[in-house]
């Protein structure tokens, strides 16, 4: 009789253990499972439906690892009329996943749709400020002899760079409804099509039989959504997923353990994300340039990037990070010199009340901002500037009230458009500068930014941007703290992993490693 108690219990346990059957069967060599922190599919209400990473659609122009525009669906381009007329020649023999051919008319239809529905929010890149940079000066776009021709109101020196990526997405015009939404699934030219999507859980991609390039190595790729950083890492270690991709796939602190493990491969590629310190120069003490310089000199960037960011970032110096290629000013350095900083504080007079270092609570999840802010606090205190840290939910309101002295935050640009950063953030009339009380007013800076924007000669434009950055390094309205990499990780069995500076992993190039 005694054992009877155990019979039902054993039965339940047995049912649980056999019923679950452990994990999904190990994927065959033609199937791959990845995980990302966010859903890379945004759905039919989004301007793009899917993220560029999934390679369902392709853009006209994309960027290389130095943010230089390179051909994608456009085979080549040329400018005429001093940068007022741009002609994009399309790649031959390209078909959409529904079998219809890519034509100049279909590209024009996509551009017209963007112009019609903007401004429109997106889970990826809003059709807003970046869109204005891309298409703001377009007077007319039309198909001419199989090519796409943009006629502009004023010369634009770098139209291909501004169009690169999301803003030059091309999908079959049949995929769209009259109101600019999607009629069904996205229809692109990329190596994959979206076969299945369970919102917030997974996207299933299958190879596109009509793709113009080489067929991808994996017939099927499942991209799971795992928002929690620890759960992502557990799924990878348990062998349920073969890799973690996308922005913030690995927290900086998680990267070293995988890098040391040769069953995994960590790819640390630079990204467009830069951590900046923004000074409130509209009030004391940082209205005094000597104290801004002292604060800058007090920071040991090497310690922050090496320890707190676990080597996933490089110390910042020039305003534009190295991913901007030759636009980044060479020779601009950010020194660590506490002795000189103390001398400057002594000369200018130490502030009596502690300065406020402001951090957004939204950013403390991805980067160790609370720790970095604490290091900044001690660094400032050591050179004679007492400081305190404030973590706020709504930093905008705090900044607009002028109730901060230093703001720590990360920014990125949608493409290699340097003008955008300077014009939106630091020009004397920039919303960021004025509303957030940066208090930076420099006629010289404004003049140089305007000159660079209309300069069509590449070398002259580059020199102007170098001058702008040298000016910023001296004035210090905002100082770059660190250039952030975006580490991603895959099982060693997965090869062909490449990541662009805009976190785009080319899923079409993944292949079993040999």
């Amino acid at each position, binding site marked *: *009789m005694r054992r009877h108690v155990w019979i039902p219990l054993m039965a339940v346990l047995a049912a649980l253990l056999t019923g679950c059957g452990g994990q*999904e069967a190990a994927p065959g060599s033609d199937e791959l499972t990845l995980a990302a922190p966010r859903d890379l599919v945004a759905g039919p209400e989004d301007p793009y439906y899917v993220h560029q990473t999934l390679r369902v659609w392709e853009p006209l122009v994309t960027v290389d690892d130095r943010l230089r525009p390179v051909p994608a669906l456009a085979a080549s381009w040329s400018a005429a009329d001093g940068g007022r007329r741009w002609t994009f020649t399309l790649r031959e023999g390209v078909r959409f996943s529904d079998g219809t051919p890519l034509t100049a008319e279909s590209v024009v239809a996509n551009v017209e749709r963007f112009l019609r529905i903007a401004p429109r929010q997106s889970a990826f890149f809003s059709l807003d400020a970046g869109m204005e940079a891309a298409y703001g000066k377009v007077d007319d776009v039309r198909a001419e002899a199989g090519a796409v021709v943009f006629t502009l109101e004023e010369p634009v020196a770098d139209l291909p760079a501004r169009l690169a990526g999301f803003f030059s997405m091309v999908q079959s015009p049949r995929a769209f409804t009259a109101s600019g939404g999607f009629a069904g699934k996205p229809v692109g030219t990329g190596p994959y099509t979206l076969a299945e999507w369970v919102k917030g859980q997974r996207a299933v991609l299958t190879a596109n039989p009509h793709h113009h390039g080489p067929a991808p190595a994996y017939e099927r790729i499942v991209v799971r959504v795992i*928002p929690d950083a620890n759960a992502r890492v557990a*799924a990878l270690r348990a062998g*349920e997923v073969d890799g973690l991709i996308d922005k913030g796939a690995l927290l900086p602190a998680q990267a070293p353990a995988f890098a040391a493990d040769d069953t995994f491969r960590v790819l640390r590629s630079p990204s467009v994300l830069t951590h900046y310190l923004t000074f409130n120069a509209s009030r004391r003490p940082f209205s005094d340039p000597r104290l801004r310089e002292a604060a800058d000199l007090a920071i040991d960037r090497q310690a922050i990037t090496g320890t707190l960011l676990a080597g996933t970032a490089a110390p910042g110096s020039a305003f534009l990070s190295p991913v901007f290629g030759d636009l980044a000013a060479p020779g601009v350095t950010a020194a660590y010199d506490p002795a000189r900083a103390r001398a400057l504080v002594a000369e200018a007079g130490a502030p009596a009340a502690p300065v406020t270092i402001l951090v957004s609570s939204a950013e403390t999840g991805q980067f160790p901002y609370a720790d970095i802010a604490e290091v900044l606090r001690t660094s400032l205190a050591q050179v004679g500037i007492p400081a305190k840290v404030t973590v706020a939910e709504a930093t905008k309101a705090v900044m607009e009230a002028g109730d901060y002295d230093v703001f720590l935050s990360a920014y990125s640009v949608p493409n290699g458009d340097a003008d955008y950063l300077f014009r939106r953030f630091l020009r004397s009339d920039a919303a960021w500068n004025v509303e957030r009380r940066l208090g930076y007013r420099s006629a010289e800076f404004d003049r140089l930014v305007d000159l660079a924007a209309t300069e069509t000669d590449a070398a002259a434009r580059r020199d102007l941007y170098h001058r702008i950055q040298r000016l910023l390094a001296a004035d210090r309205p905002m100082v770059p703290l660190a250039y952030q990499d975006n580490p991603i990780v895959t099982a060693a069995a997965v090869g062909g992993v490449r990541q662009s500076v805009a976190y785009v992993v080319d899923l079409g190039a993944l292949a079993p490693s040999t």
Partner: protein
Amino acid sequence: MTAVLVRRGAELLFALLALSLLVFLLTALAPGDPAEEILRRGGVQPTPESVAALRAELGLDRPLFDRYLSWLGDVLRGDLGRSYADRSPVAEEIAARVPATLRLAGAAALVAGGLAVLAALLAVLRPGSPVGRAVALATVAVSGVPPYVVGIVLISVVAVGLRVLPTGGGDGPGAVVLPAVTLGLAGAATLLRLLRADLAHAVRLPFVRLAVAKGLRRRRAVVVHALRVAAPNAVTAAGVMLAELLTGAVVVETLFSWPGVGQLAVTAIRQRDLPVVQAYVLVTAVATVLLLALAELCLAACDPRVRR
């Protein structure tokens, strides 16, 4: 009974109305400008003009009370608004997540209830037996550890170490086991304490002793008769626990990437997707209020003393 129903119904309606106002104010007065947050996705600073345009489109520039009334009207029609993140209808999003939460809550309740009944019976039927003591001790000890820690240990031992069960995710029948065990262990101890005490008391009641004296096997007397008398406190506690489980075990769902309403809420909070947060709070609060009212009604139906 009818009078009770009417009075309780009126109270419930008032509670729900107050609740809706509270939920609305909580999210409407949250700091930050949703229009700017929406446009800042992708890390790019929006233009002031498009922020203003979006504010107008979302109706954020209207007076607060106007916004409440139109929101309440929409809610009563089953329209919970559209997500800021991707413009999809929030009601659909929540509805899609409810089955996963129900599955997890059901499995967790099974684990908690099963463990509690088993351990309580063992303790009473075989006081002093090492197995019974071990089960009771383990249950109480584990319940003292936060579910987050239990979950991490289970993931690293069972899923990553032994690889016998998935780390979660919601696909496949095995995925529910670890999160359900994590949640179930947390609930089991409370139920066990109530049930064991009440059962120990019940077996000493004259009618149980009479039954045994009349020749009924002790096991049957305890399992069939005493357990029934001992159940009400534990059942009430289980009702409250179930209500908590249904609101989405936020921590456990996040830890096991379980696609339920709790995970949806966490993602929405991170993205400042206010309509989703608002809908989540509203739906779970309404569900809790209704469940508790239902539990009270059940007790009233069973026990005449409660009706007064």
